């Protein structure tokens, strides 16, 4: 970018590290598994986490070997379970994207490259815990057992959509799984989640709330409200900033002056940790630690989940216009699915064959679900929720003016 010469001065405007046509290359991380000790979650104070905030918690090294105090010691079955959910999410996302491209969905957002986030973190929780996601954590629903057909029906917005075609695809709501309705305005859930958590405290229940916000959205006021209220009122909440480097076309350099989010929690008095977001084991472990902390009454934890948005922002986006097409291949964190898979192979609990089998199994699962779902209508052809669903659930009961408008619509 050149400066226009009609002005003597200038504003210092950041830029992304690499733009189309440039060669992406990232420094490899200075942190290794085992670099950091695990403090006691129940007594740990924010000052005890300065190194964790400035560092990076990893468990899996580049060769898929797990080590260090943060290794959660999961059984092979649990790890396979996690891998299966991640693979499921990826295949599901691919199918939904295809449906979007063929006009069966209006819009879609994938979790590509970030599958571990929702899945490892949700697995580290208890089932009574509340999940307050963004559009980038739909994977939590698999962990909580949501039926895939129901998810697809939502994305289509067809007759069986549990939210009756009211929000765009990926704006799931799944009360049974304590997965709270996704809202488009970014950031709002972060501060709301503190309220959810405080209600649990108030009622004296062993419930923790987890929430996420993007690197971009952390610039909203809600981020500040969340950290401050969580700190002042000691809320049992896990506050994650998912730093996937990008907010649509805007690089995280526009969201932080120092390339770092984790340490922002410290001056609020919140223990703060940065974790490798593509390392299933590290994510699981840090989340479990934060849950233990919250459940013990010690309060909130602030976590930066360091990852990379491999895919486009959404089906409306074309990242090749603003970043090198292969930038994600240079990401030091690699791919979360590949890393967990390699780890399992390393420990003799998985193989390329079992992986292929798994993919095939899930592929048919997804195809079956999708075929089942479109029976209830697709976006191109309907049937949609009936038009009179517009008027219900605006209020608990339909007030007279909505009844009038309803009648006008049905009559006219």
């Amino acid at each position, binding site marked *: 970018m050149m400066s226009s010469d009609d002005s003597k001065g200038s504003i210092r405007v950041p830029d992304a590290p690499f733009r189309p046509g440039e060669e992406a290359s990232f420094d490899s991380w200075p942190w290794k598994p085992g670099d950091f000790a695990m403090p006691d979650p129940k007594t740990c104070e924010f000052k005890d986490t300065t190194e964790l905030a400035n560092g990076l918690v990893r468990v899996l090294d580049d060769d898929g070997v797990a080590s260090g105090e943060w290794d959660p010691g999961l059984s092979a079955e649990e790890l396979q379970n996690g891998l299966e959910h991640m693979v499921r999410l990826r295949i599901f996302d691919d199918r939904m994207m295809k449906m979007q491209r063929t006009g069966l969905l209006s819009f879609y957002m994938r979790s590509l490259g970030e599958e571990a986030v929702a899945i490892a973190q949700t697995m580290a929780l208890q089932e009574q815990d509340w999940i307050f996601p963004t559009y980038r954590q739909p994977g939590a629903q698999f962990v909580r057992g949501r039926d895939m057909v129901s998810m697809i029906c939502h994305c289509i917005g067809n007759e069986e959509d549990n*939210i009756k075609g009211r929000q765009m695809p990926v704006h799931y709501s799944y009360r049974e799984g304590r997965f709270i*309705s996704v809202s488009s305005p970014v950031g*709002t859930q972060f501060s709301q989640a503190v309220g959810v958590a405080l209600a649990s405290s108030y009622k004296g229940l062993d419930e923790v709330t987890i929430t996420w916000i993007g690197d971009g959205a952390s610039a909203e*006021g809600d981020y500040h*409200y969340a950290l*401050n209220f969580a700190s002042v009122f000691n809320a049992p909440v896990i506050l994650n900033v998912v730093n996937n480097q990008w907010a649509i076309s805007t690089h995280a350099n526009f969201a932080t002056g120092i390339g770092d989010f984790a340490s922002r929690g410290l001056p609020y008095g919140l223990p703060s940790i940065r974790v490798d977001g593509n390392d299933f084991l590290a994510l699981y472990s840090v989340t479990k630690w934060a849950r233990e902390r919250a459940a013990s009454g010690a309060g909130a934890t602030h976590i930066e989940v360091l990852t990379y948005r491999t895919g486009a922002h959404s089906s409306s986006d074309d990242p090749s216009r603003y970043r090198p097409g292969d930038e994600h291949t240079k990401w030091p964190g690699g791919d979360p699915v590949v890393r967990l898979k390699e780890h399992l192979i390393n420990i003799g609990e998985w193989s390329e064959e079992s992986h292929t089998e798994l993919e095939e199994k899930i592929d048919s699962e997804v195809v079956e679900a999708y075929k089942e779902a479109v029976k209830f209508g697709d976006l191109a052809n309907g049937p949609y929720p009936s038009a009179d669903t517009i008027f219900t659930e*605006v*209020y608990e009961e339909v007030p007279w003016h909505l009844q009038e408008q309803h009648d006008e619509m049905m009559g006219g």
Partner: protein
Amino acid sequence: MTNMNMIQSLNSALDIMLDRDPDVIIFGEDVGYFGGVFRTTDGLQEKHGDHRVFDTPLSEGGIAATAFGMGLNGLRPIVEIQFADYIFPAYDQIVNEMAKIRHRSGGEFWSPVTLRTPAGGGIRGGHHHSQSPESQFTHTPGLKVVYCSTPYNAKGLLISSVESNDPVIFFEPKRCYRGPFYGDPHKVPTYRIPLGQARMALEGSECTVISWGAMVHVCEQAIKDSGFSCDLIDLQTLVPWDKETVVGSIEKTGRCVIVHEAPKTSGFGAEMSASIQERCFYHLESPIVRVTGWDTPFPHTTEWDYMPGPTRIAAAIAQTQED
């Protein structure tokens, strides 16, 4: 039988709700130890404990968001926004979140927050301690909008608002906080004024005057001054408003004056006027007149030139009779 002023009647409603429902929780700026800058929550922390009635960080957005989340998880929060002028940092949380959660989640989630806020002029508050922003909430489906005017309806409406499972924005005319006194809202028994129901403050035959909040009292004076026989409708709930009472009155009188403090353009008077015109066109014998604050910011020393007074309102009533 002791008279209560509006502050006391609101306090009583809050106290009753804290007593009756363990899920009720009250918070906001200065509402805890101190009992609120207008003293509305006086004594409630001491009586009910500081985990049920407490101060917060100075952040209307944070207060609204926290209340929203608590409401999702089974509580029934009542929050105070210290002045209605300061509700705007919470506007996104209110109009995009609270208002839409039930609909957007297909009914899976809802959050029954009551936001109380002192509104209106008459205390020399200038630009930012005088606004009456009710109409800025009436355009958002999913919210109920209530505006009390007397100690009596303040209590009954507040209890109904807290019991409502929809989010309610509850405006309190701060100019009326310590008088004039009407009715006898005793601590017991609890009473409710249903949301959506107007109050016929005066009955007459020549003109319908519709108002809410502090202006109801000014209208009462104006009607007396005007010498005409008027229905005076205190709307009480703006969304949803009371169609039967309003339409019935206009069909009787054929003439209408709408009065509010907020600026004219897109004030809730516009909606009332438009709706009445749509429903009662053939009953109207003269144009509906709006008497409102001017389309300017709210001034400090000249506030009595800004707000509708009995003279302007009486003139408007007379004008409806001329034609």
